[in-house]
């Protein structure tokens, strides 16, 4: 039997990227979360001997998503026709960005989401939050630059010459 600790690690590492991966197919967060949950439970029940739990789970999620789409006579979205590894990398990058958005200061995050997800204008956001338009613009610019900055692989380099 797989240890609880093993499973918790799988959740910690894979739950968010797997959900984002499923959202690409299902375009629905609740459905995606449920499906990933079911897959992880199925993985625990079966405890299959596989060399990589990660690739096993990604293909299980993918197969179940495709099944659901077929059942509802929806074709697999065209943009999902990309190599498996590319899709996995993309989901991991998305999970990283999701966490970065979550960690933004509250006001900055609210401004960003209202503008980019809800499509509100700076003026509307300013009114709703009771701050100036200028502040809204600042929040969004800072949020975007910190999100973009984070996506570069960072490294420290201190060189001196002898």
């Amino acid at each position, binding site marked *: 039997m797989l240890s609880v600790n093993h499973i918790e690690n799988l959740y910690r590492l894979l739950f968010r990227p797997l959900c984002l991966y499923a959202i690409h197919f299902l375009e629905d967060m609740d459905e995606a979360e449920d499906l990933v949950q079911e897959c992880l439970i199925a993985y625990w029940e079966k405890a299959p001997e596989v060399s990589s739990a990660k690739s096993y789970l990604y293909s299980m999620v993918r197969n179940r998503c495709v099944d659901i789409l077929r059942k509802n006579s929806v074709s697999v979205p065209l943009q999902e026709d990309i190599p498996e590894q590319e899709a996995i990398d993309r989901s991991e990058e998305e*999970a990283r960005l999701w966490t970065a958005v979550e960690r933004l200061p509250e006001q900055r995050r609210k401004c960003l989401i209202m503008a980019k997800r809800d499509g509100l204008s700076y003026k509307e956001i300013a009114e709703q939050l009771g701050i100036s338009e200028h502040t809204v613009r600042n929040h969004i610019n800072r949020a975007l630059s910190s999100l973009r900055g984070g996506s570069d692989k960072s*490294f420290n*380099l201190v*060189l001196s010459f002898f």
Partner: protein
Amino acid sequence: MTLQFVLNHFVYGRLDYRQAFKGFLKATGLKRKINWYPYASAAAAILIVVFLLCHNHNSWKEYTAYDITQTFTLADGTQVTLAPGATVSVQEHRNPRHVSMSGQALFTVAKDPEHPFVVTSPQSRIEVLGTVFSITESDKITRVDVTEGHVMASALNGNSTELHAGESALLSDGFWSPLTPSPNPTAWATGSFVYDAVPLADVLNELSAYYGKDIIVPDTDKRLTAEFSTDMPLDEILGFISLALNVDLK
């Protein structure tokens, strides 16, 4: 485009693995209850005793790093960093300072002079009081690198060697042999190579071993002070070094 996708779906607090894991425990906990159901007619006290016994017998707790390097804190405060594929097991209730391991692991052992910390692998036994050291264990060999403090390393045949900070040894065919220490034996765990006026040859030998690529070492007595992330491709690191020290690394 990736960012826009995330923002389109973003809801604060959602896609939280902790919540999901709670759901998992609930779902599988139900299962356990179902398994116990046939015994429900027995006295509750007996059930509890049985449960405690099982619990004690299976109290090996296992920590495994899957696809990435991971750090765990054991019950006694010792930190263990595991390379992908490495595992340590510990009987937390019975003997919290005795772990068995396989693969590659870095231990930062919590100080407790009364209770030595013992690591056993299929080929060796390492005993320490409070120190930082790493073990790389594979089919035939065990390598021990001590970063701080000192350890007593023994092979299963009883051959033993004492290692101090900065020393490394290799166990092969039941014998320990000292190794020329490399500047960053734990780079795989710390994620960085740190060089403080290290002879270029030592730097290049370490990088060559880490990346598994041959590097021709130029004849020079130049030294390097630099810090690189292990995420960087080797070519990029070599590019910086050749720029910094004005040497040709091809």
